[in-house]
């Protein structure tokens, strides 16, 4: 028995691994609302890691340059270089700043073209760590649309809707993506759902309600014209 025991243990471990690899994905696909067991175990740390992953996407967009972007609208980049200390005068501290600056990128630039795809894994990581991270779904879907194709972006945000079916913002953004690729019917459907889910309380933005209305009118107009 002593001779066979290690072999039994190894065989048992392999069997458990194979069984888990078959069973776990089935359980997960049956319950898309559930988070990974590992992430459940990580708890609040997973949420923090998700935020860091989302922030990394921003850093990656700036090719490693850690920036502050107080302007939320991506079309108007207002960046300022994060200085370690503006009041440092002593030469040896300047030398430390200089050496720190050499280690990491310090010049403002953006990724362009195919390079923008480098952002996508961070959005995927963010939503895997926290499936209820709405901003990650929204911004990620935009970048999937921009770098891959509109359907990829829609696919991404649909996954988010499965996990957050009560959030109007995801329906709004999916509707906008449908609008961009000229799929008027699905766009109208999503925008109407967004309007229905929008609540007149302090958390739901009235500006986005206005945007829902604007996009709905545009989609219906295009649908009537048949373009």
């Amino acid at each position, binding site marked *: 028995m002593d001779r066979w025991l290690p072999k039994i243990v190894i065989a048992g471990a392999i069997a458990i691994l194979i069984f888990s690899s078959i069973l776990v994905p089935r359980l997960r696909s049956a319950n898309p609302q559930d988070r990974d067991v590992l992430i459940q175990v990580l708890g609040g740390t997973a949420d923090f890691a998700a935020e860091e992953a989302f922030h990394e996407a921003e850093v*990656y967009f700036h*090719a*490693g340059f850690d920036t502050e972007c107080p302007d939320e609208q991506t079309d108007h980049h207002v960046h300022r270089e994060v*200085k*370690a*200390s*503006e*009041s*440092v005068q*002593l030469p*040896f*501290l300047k030398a*430390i*700043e200089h*050496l*720190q600056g*050499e*280690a*990491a*990128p310090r010049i403002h630039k953006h990724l362009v073209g*195919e*390079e*923008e*795809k*480098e*952002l*996508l*894994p*961070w959005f*995927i*990581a963010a939503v895997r760590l926290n499936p209820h991270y709405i901003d990650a779904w929204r911004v990620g879907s935009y970048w*999937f649309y921009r*770098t*891959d194709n509109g359907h990829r972006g829609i696919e*991404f945000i649909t996954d988010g809707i499965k996990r957050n079916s009560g959030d109007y913002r995801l329906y709004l953004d999916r509707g906008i993506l449908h609008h961009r690729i000229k799929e008027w019917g699905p766009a109208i459907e999503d925008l109407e759902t967004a309007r229905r889910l929008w609540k007149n309380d302090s958390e739901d933005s009235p500006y986005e309600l206005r945007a829902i209305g604007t996009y709905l009118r545009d989609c219906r107009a295009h649908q009537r014209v048949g373009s």
Partner: protein
Amino acid sequence: MGSLAIARLAIIENLRRKEFYVVLVLVLGLAVWMAMLNMGSSGTGRFAKDVVMQVTWLASFALAIPLAVRQMASDLEHKTVYVLASRPISRWHYIAGRTLGAAFASVACFACMFLVLVLMMMFKGVTSVADPGLWQAFVLQITALFMVCSIAMLFSVVGTPGAAVTFSLLILAIMRYGGPSILALIAKMPPLARILSWVVYLTMPHLEFFNISQRVVHGWGPLPLSILGQVIVYGLGYSFVVTAMAAVIFRRRWL
């Protein structure tokens, strides 16, 4: 010669322990997983490189600190220090030998992990062995390992092994990842606290200089050689001073 012989002893001991192989297998597993990674997009080059580099770097520190702390603790607990201390070597030679041994053993482990990392990145097509930035990162990490081992040795001379590991990890985490932000924090303090904080800040090991992984990941090119030279000299000099401090403290210790 005495220090080198003690260093050789430390290397043999540490490479014959099992922990190194466990960590290597974990890193290998991670590299294989990353190489097969399909995150649903083709833009996984930097991501894979970034994650594997960070894990490899952290794993090398996680190996180095307990390894360095264990040198002294094991010798004193098991009285194996007597065999060495009864020879014609000073306490400085002993501490230097143990620190060097821990550092060399850590570097050997890190070199194996780095090889796995490079092979994975070449498989992914995101790097080549001709990338000077990658090799600079390798050399700087080796220097950082020397610093970390000397710091861990200093803490192990003054405190318990557990405390030595904890404080070494704390300093590593704070300076490696928070180093650039600390100056800004200090600038906001009142004058007296600011002066004291500056003194503490200057004496801390500036491990953030040795972390050029972001340069490598985002393809910012290699460091200028003058900067590389300055940083290496700083790292080795700091290691020497800290090791000397450990030797001075150990000189007064009863065995």
